């Protein structure tokens, strides 16, 4: 019997620190509902003796220095699930919205580099039928891209960068085991692009795009100190105690934090978006997605605020047969609020510290 893409499955569990793998217990790993067919991209970093005086014109030996691994996924914009990606990449605070009991308001903003440059790590798991059942501990995220277009659901792209350690034949148990390590997701709430609103404020003048809004994409990226994460003095080998098995990362910190965005909007009289590019106006941008009710009047809600943004380009384009503007720009650090951007997410997750 052949295995197909329907046999694939992914999961992750939050680690307490970078080096300690999530202990395998019933339900310790939570399923990732990826929409892609991606798997871990693993590579050993090797060196050889080709340039040595071997007496022959070829390399005669090769040895392993280190290991590297990463995986990229796209998940649907479930209110509860996008918060996990945000949590891995951010400083975090949780509150209860006014009138709420089961609903929570989660606030995310880029991790303060004066406090730490080591964001949270996960133990990542993936399976392809019976042949491939591996773990990748010490995986950190280097950012995310949240987007919405047309009538479809929001989606979020992210990558997990491993320390190089891959555990094959991990023994992780999945559905349909009676009490699997990987628990399935239930009760998810999906955001759609039709629930999105775009508001841009220019020096106190607010533009609510309303029916002119078409699409958005917000991308948060971090440059990673990937090479520095290999620390010779740590003696952190792929196989503990086996000094020749190649080192893995003992830390994986970030350096710069960057935010870029793009929008698709219908053209308007006098092309204010083009003027904003030409004059390099400082704009405040708020993107919201309001979903279904959790309790009382409290709804699932996503709010992305870019307090200081500038447009880089905007040009007329044809989308679905009508004249539109494709706008792109980037966020700048806001000294007033001490942030590059912030995301607020209202849902029924009690806290992301215990969500996965």
């Amino acid at each position, binding site marked *: 019997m052949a295995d197909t893409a329907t046999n694939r499955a992914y999961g992750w569990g939050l680690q307490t620190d970078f080096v300690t793998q999530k202990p395998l217990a019933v339900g310790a790993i939570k399923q990732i509902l990826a929409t892609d067919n991606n798997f871990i991209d693993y590579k050993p970093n090797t060196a050889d003796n080709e340039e040595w005086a071997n007496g022959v014109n070829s390399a005669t030996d090769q040895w392993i220095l280190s290991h590297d691994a990463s995986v990229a996924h796209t998940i649907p914009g479930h209110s509860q699930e996008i918060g996990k990606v945000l949590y891995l990449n951010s400083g975090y605070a949780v509150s*209860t919205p006014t009138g709420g009991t089961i609903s929570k308001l989660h606030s995310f903003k880029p991790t303060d580099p004066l*406090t730490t440059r080591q964001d949270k790590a996960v133990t990542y798991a993936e399976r392809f039928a019976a042949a491939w059942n591996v773990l990748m501990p010490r995986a950190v995220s280097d950012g995310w891209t949240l987007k919405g277009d047309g009538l479809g659901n929001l989606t979020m792209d992210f990558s997990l960068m491993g320390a190089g350690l891959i555990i094959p034949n991990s023994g992780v148990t999945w559905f349909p085991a009676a009490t699997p390590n990987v628990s399935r997701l239930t009760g998810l709430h999906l955001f759609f692009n039709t629930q999105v609103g775009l508001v841009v404020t220019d020096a106190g003048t607010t533009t609510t795009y309303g029916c002119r809004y078409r699409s958005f994409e917000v991308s948060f990226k971090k440059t990673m100190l990937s090479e520095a994460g290999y620390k010779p003095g740590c003696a952190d080998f792929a196989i503990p105690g086996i000094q020749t098995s190649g080192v893995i990362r003992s830390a994986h910190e970030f350096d710069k934090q960057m935010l870029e965005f793009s929008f698709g909007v219908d053209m308007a009289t006098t092309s204010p978006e083009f003027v904003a590019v030409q004059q390099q106006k400082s704009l405040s941008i708020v993107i919201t997605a309001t979903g279904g009710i959790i309790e009382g009047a409290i709804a699932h809600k996503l709010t992305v605020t870019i307090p200081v943004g500038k447009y880089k380009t905007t040009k007329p384009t044809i989308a679905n047969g009508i004249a539109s503007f494709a706008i792109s720009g980037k966020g700048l650090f806001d000294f007033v609020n001490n942030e590059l951007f912030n995301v607020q997410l209202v849902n029924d997750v009690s806290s992301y510290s215990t969500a996965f």
Partner: protein
Amino acid sequence: MNEPIKLKVPSGGVTHAVTTVDPDTKEAVTEQLPVEYISQGNYDAELKPTSIVETKSAAFAEYLASAYGLEIINPQPVVPGDDSGSPPPRDFEAEYPADYPKREIFIGLKMPFETARGLEREQLVTISGIKDKTADSILAWQPAPVAPVQPDADSEENNGGQE
């Protein structure tokens, strides 16, 4: 091994301003909500009123004190924790010359003087309390000239030698 740093959560708890846009009216609504839990990287804290938070990271302790107003109760002052490279608290008051326009705003923001000096006009006017006129006076500000020291004969020779 370093002793953990202990911080006390204020009796009224910790709040933060949350601004949301009403989907119907499109108006921004800001309210203060109690913060129950926060994290930065692998450091985290429950922020129940009057509770004691412990951390071994001096940097995280500083973050809790500056961003959320927690009081460091032990040790006093903060000793380096497992992030021993963190700098001591800056004296922003001392950094700003007495005649620097609206210096109290920058000090309140804990913005280093060299950062403030590097801001452009459009960045300055985004700061609460600074309008166009003030921004212009900030950009026009120059440090008071220092009275020149009369060189003695030796130093003149040295200067000449360098040329």
